[in-house]
């Protein structure tokens, strides 16, 4: 007889049925993924970035595959706040998973506007502040590399979020990620999400042009996993260990083993991005795989894994 494993976690005060989230921008608004797996099996769902106005996104090509990874330069294409509220909120309201809206903008006021307008929605548990997108000219990553700006935007958006939770999503392309992490935590972040993509470029040697129309893109997928695990562990040790701020770990996770590795490194929950593209059932399988692992190892609650690195 198999022992029962408690897969639930407490994530910044919210109880989730399990620690597996979708990653922003990689699962649309849930409808498409729903054709392949039961989305009620998710612990959390993070939407594509939402900005005040609709964004077309960047010109094509927006994607190129690299060794064990891919670059994207979607450019935060999204339907904009108004259509999001009208069309997507009703769908998201039906989800069992905790829904977090990923917020993007080019000015701090943009971020505040989106957050304020959505802060009253019952459908959502909170926000993920995207200050780490490498694929837009203004805003995005520029807010995320400087601890002073991280502090400022976190504090302001936290206020706008009312009693909703605020996850701050950090960029890995900084000299010392603990500085930006600390700035976020000290200014009201309820959770940290790390990491976003790494800036990168592929050049077509025949045409001598960058393959992406945007020239550069963000690297994601298994290629980045060992760097992401390191950064999660670093922030856990240096910033969050003795706080109640959980880390949402992501970057290259494609199976339960990867997810468990992030949790051992210090993540309370994990997000799956690129892996859903080639295996749309990834999230569901990872939840099952974590459960099996815990059974085999006699771990009674998945939360025991968090930060259990020796």
């Amino acid at each position, binding site marked *: 007889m198999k022992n029962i494993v408690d897969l639930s976690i407490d994530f910044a005060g919210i109880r989730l049925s399990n620690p597996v989230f979708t990653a922003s*921008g*990689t*699962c*649309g608004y849930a409808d*498409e*993924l729903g*054709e*392949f797996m039961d989305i009620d099996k998710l612990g959390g769902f993070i939407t*594509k970035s939402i900005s005040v106005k609709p964004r*077309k*996104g*960047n*010109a*094509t*090509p*927006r*994607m*190129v*595959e*690299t*060794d*064990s*990874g*891919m670059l*994207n330069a*979607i450019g935060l*294409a999204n339907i904009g706040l108004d259509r999001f509220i009208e069309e997507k909120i009703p769908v998201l309201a039906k989800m069992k998973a905790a829904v977090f809206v990923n917020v993007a903008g080019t000015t701090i006021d943009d971020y505040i506007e989106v957050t304020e307008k959505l802060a009253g929605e019952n459908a959502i548990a909170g926000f993920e502040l995207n200050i780490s997108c490498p694929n837009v000219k203004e805003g995005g990553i520029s807010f995320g590399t400087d601890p002073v700006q991280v502090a400022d935007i976190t504090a302001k958006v936290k206020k706008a979020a009312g009693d909703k939770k605020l996850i701050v999503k950090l960029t890995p392309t900084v000299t010392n990620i603990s500085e930006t992490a600390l700035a976020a935590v000290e200014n009201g972040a309820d959770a940290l999400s790390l990491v976003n993509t790494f800036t990168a470029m592929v050049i077509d040697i025949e045409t001598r042009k960058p393959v992406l129309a945007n020239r550069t893109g963000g690297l994601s*997928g*298994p290629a980045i996993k060992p760097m992401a695990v390191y950064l999660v562990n670093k922030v856990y040790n240096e910033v969050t260990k003795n706080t109640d701020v959980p880390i949402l770990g992501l970057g290259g996770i494609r199976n339960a083993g990867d997810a468990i590795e992030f949790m051992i490194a210090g993540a309370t929950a994990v997000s799956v991005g*690129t892996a*859903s*593209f*080639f*295996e*749309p*059932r990834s999230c569901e399988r990872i939840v099952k795989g974590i459960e099996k692992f815990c059974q085999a190892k006699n771990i009674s609650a998945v939360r025991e894994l968090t930060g259990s690195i020796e």
Partner: protein
Amino acid sequence: MTRPFLFSVWNRIMCDDGSKKGIFEAKVNSNRCIGEGFYRVNLGFCGDGARLFAGFIPGQFVEIDLSGAPLPAMDKIPEKLRDASGRSIILRRPFSLADVEVCGDVVNIEILYCCVGPASLRMMELKEGNVVSVIGPLGNGFDIDKNKKVALLAVGGMGAGPLQHLARELAKIPGMEVVAFAGAQSVDRLPFEKPFGDFSARPTLCLNEFSKSATKSIVATDDGSAGFKGFVTGAMESWLDSCKAEMKDIIIYCCGPEMMLATMAEIAEKRGIDCQVSMERRMACGIGLCQSCAVECRKKGTDETFYKMCCKDGPVFDSREVVYTL
């Protein structure tokens, strides 16, 4: 465009759980070389997969996981692809179907493909009995308008696959005249099985794949090594010049390089002919998750543009709505 749900063979049959697409394991029935760098692989489905693929519409596509397939020995890889061939792949690859065949409980699909990089080179090594993971059916497919009298197919490169499939379905419509225009740089770059029919007569019914479905085919080669000397678009224009049908009764279906689609769209626009183009984009997912596959489209009656997704809203578009990337 309205979906021709009336056609029984195209009726989408649903999975037990009601979904219209799924992830299935397919067995490789055969995989053979039909010309330098051109192959045809045949995959078999059973169960839910068979049911869904029986309703496959020409122009729809599948996403195949080739990451576990072996790389061919270096001497089998064309020199200019050797460097790129070593890349470790993680993403699936989109392929259209050249044929769908229902054999009792089993449905076999056929893909015409060309080796251009790490995934398609790995595809070359698939052997009878191997199992691959396939997502499909995906995309919208061509919209067949039964009221037309003439259907012209403009075939460039690997567009040969889906348009062969389409030709077979069009041939079932009583009174529909179907003509395929197939182009390549030279005769040995034509992705069809040799021996061809008789190239000397032009226009001529010469490509076996099309003649099987009673479709006339006209070959155009840039160097004149077979058929019409020049582009497929030129071949079609000269055919149109001497054609007696009314333009409103004609429809053009195109699949090939974007340059060809753009020229075809212009020709169609100029002459007032309806035209559908099948677009290609780099796809990370093929199922609407990633927004990689943006196709710029015009907002009707304005100069504004927006992006549709090639994998979900396409790959077939009305030729007038697309802003081509050249």
